[in-house]
């Protein structure tokens, strides 16, 4: 089976985003990495059972090898969730930046621990 399919690429991108989450200490980069994982999931869903000669599912009641409409509908929901989550996370980050003065996870963590004592 050929190697470059939608699923394999999306798995790679997903774990690239996951690695970014683990390695990067900047909060904005973590939010971007979550966005990358979101995109990987969307690619994965859309390439379920996809072949080059698929026809878009519009006005295709009798046709052959039509693209599967269900993942596309689910991904509309997932994109809007991505928008909502990123907007909340960014506005929260601005608040956090003004409170702690740093965009670094470790520094913010130390500041919060000192403020707790």
């Amino acid at each position, binding site marked *: 089976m050929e190697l470059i399919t939608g699923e394999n690429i999306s*798995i790679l991108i997903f774990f690239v985003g996951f*690695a970014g989450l*683990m390695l990067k200490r900047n909060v904005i980069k973590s939010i971007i990495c979550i966005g990358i994982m979101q995109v990987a999931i969307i690619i994965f869903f859309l390439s379920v059972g996809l072949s080059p000669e698929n026809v878009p*599912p519009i006005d295709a*009641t009798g046709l052959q090898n039509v693209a599967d*409409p269900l993942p596309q509908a689910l991904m509309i929901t997932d994109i*809007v969730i991505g928008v909502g989550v990123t907007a*909340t996370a960014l*506005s929260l980050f601005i*608040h956090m930046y003004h409170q702690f003065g740093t965009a670094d996870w470790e520094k913010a963590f130390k500041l919060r621990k000192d403020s707790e004592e």
Partner: protein
Amino acid sequence: MNKLKTVSIIILILVLVITVFVLFNYSESDNSTAEYYVENSEKDTAATNAVTAIYLNYRVYDSIFETLILLVSVSAVIHFSWRKDHE
């Protein structure tokens, strides 16, 4: 210590990717639900675009929570972008 941490994480990620690829050989599914949507989405919901038929008629329960998430994230943004001189 930092160097060790990054190297170990990169190894962890590589092992994860390899295991996912190795274990990921599977049989394609005879996708019965997809055929149903394509065949009679025009009949049930009078929408030529099957995707709109799904997210507005078959799975409208999801779309309700879809719009709810927008409403809640808007009120979250308004709540978090509070300014000191606003009160």
